[in-house]
């Protein structure tokens, strides 16, 4: 049943991608293809190649889209996206890293099972072309989040400094994230983080990244999946996202026209909290 469903979704995605290629509206369609033992990101440029199209596997593919559009001056790119990929693209557009006008999306709604696997809250893109949306869900890892919140501040300090000290500075959290794409990365500058040391100093490396991502992170979890040392970065970012909502009523990935409250004055984005705590 589930397998049939997957096959039907692939078929539908293939049909739409094939139309896009046939009509010549896109340079290619970015998606995943199955090759023998694995599924890998691929740019389909002919209908023939679409034979191997696949939708399993989680790759933050917006990172690739941004790279391709940057290298090619003109033309549009088709891309098969899930909800998180769409939110990446919206945030990339806010950063002026991607011109959404050059992108034609084939929106894929995640199944309940897929949403659960990713601890997702919104497993669908705004424009759905393939599959049926299961609507908003709450598959957060509440157990872990609650554990983190129940700790008192000194327990939290012990927990995070201990777990951050596992870090081997692979930069996987940064590299896997489509939105952590600054040309000059502060994490690489010896002024902010001592170079050539593992673990990187606490709290510089991790908090600089956490702060930079606070108004960008869409909660896809790629950073946590990429971490070889099991640092629960996704949970930290989820908590920060909640802070962004509480402080500024701001949510990422919704509308390319939204602006980060951190870039604006108080008249445009007033605070959502009383200031007597200052």
């Amino acid at each position: 049943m589930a397998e049939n469903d997957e096959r039907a979704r692939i078929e539908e995605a293939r049909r739409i991608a094939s139309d896009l290629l046939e009509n010549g509206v896109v340079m290619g369609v970015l998606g995943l293809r199955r090759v023998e033992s694995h599924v890998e990101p691929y740019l389909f440029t002919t209908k023939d190649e679409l034979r191997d199209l696949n939708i399993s596997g989680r790759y933050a593919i917006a990172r690739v889209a941004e790279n391709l559009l940057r290298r090619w001056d003109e033309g549009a790119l088709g891309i098969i996206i899930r909800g998180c990929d769409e939110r990446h693209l919206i945030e990339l557009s806010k950063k002026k890293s991607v011109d959404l006008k050059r992108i034609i999306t084939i929106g894929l709604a995640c199944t309940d099972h897929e949403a659960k696997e990713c601890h997702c809250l919104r497993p669908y893109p705004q424009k759905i072309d393939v599959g049926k949306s299961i609507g908003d869900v709450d598959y957060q890892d509440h157990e872990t989040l609650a554990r983190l919140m129940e700790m008192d501040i000194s327990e939290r300090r012990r927990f995070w400094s201990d777990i951050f000290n596992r870090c081997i500075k692979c930069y996987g959290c940064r590299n896997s994230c489509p939105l952590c794409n600054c040309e000059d990365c502060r994490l690489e500058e010896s002024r902010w983080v001592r170079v050539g040391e593992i673990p990187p100093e606490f709290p510089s490396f991790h908090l600089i990244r956490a702060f930079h991502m606070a108004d960008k992170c869409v909660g896809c979890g790629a950073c946590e999946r990429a971490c070889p040392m099991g640092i629960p970065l996704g949970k930290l970012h989820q908590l920060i996202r909640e802070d962004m909502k509480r402080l500024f009523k701001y949510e990422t990935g919704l509308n390319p026209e939204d602006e980060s409250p951190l870039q604006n004055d108080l008249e445009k984005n007033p605070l959502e909290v009383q200031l007597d705590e200052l």
Partner: protein
Amino acid sequence: MNKPLTAEAGEKKTELEFVPAIAVFHCRWCLPDSDSVRSLLNEEVAAKSVVIPLNCTARMEAEFAIKALSEGFDGILILGCEIGECHYRTGNHRALKRLLLLRDILALVGIYPERLGFFWVSPFDQENIRLTINEYLDKLQELGSFK
């Protein structure tokens, strides 16, 4: 100038013997002179601390504070113009938002948000600034060393 500001603070110091090292960032529009900002700190704290002028608190990036913690400072104190008084009109709005967020993030990983002090000061009320700083230092003393 550098005598203990209150008897209470003096006593506390002998009890705890912990003298915090702080990084002070101040807006140069409300507090033009770093030396006079330094003179608001008691001698022992001043000896371990750095005072850095900024063109506006808007220039205060989260990295400055985070790196200061990494480098062993126990607190970061930011002194800037009151909302409405910014030379650049809304520079301090941005600073305020950033610092509120940073405090939340510090708290999430178990760093007392109070270590990040952010105060609006009026250049005409030195005594109030002094009091504010002292309260802040008292709090740091209570929290102890960051490392």
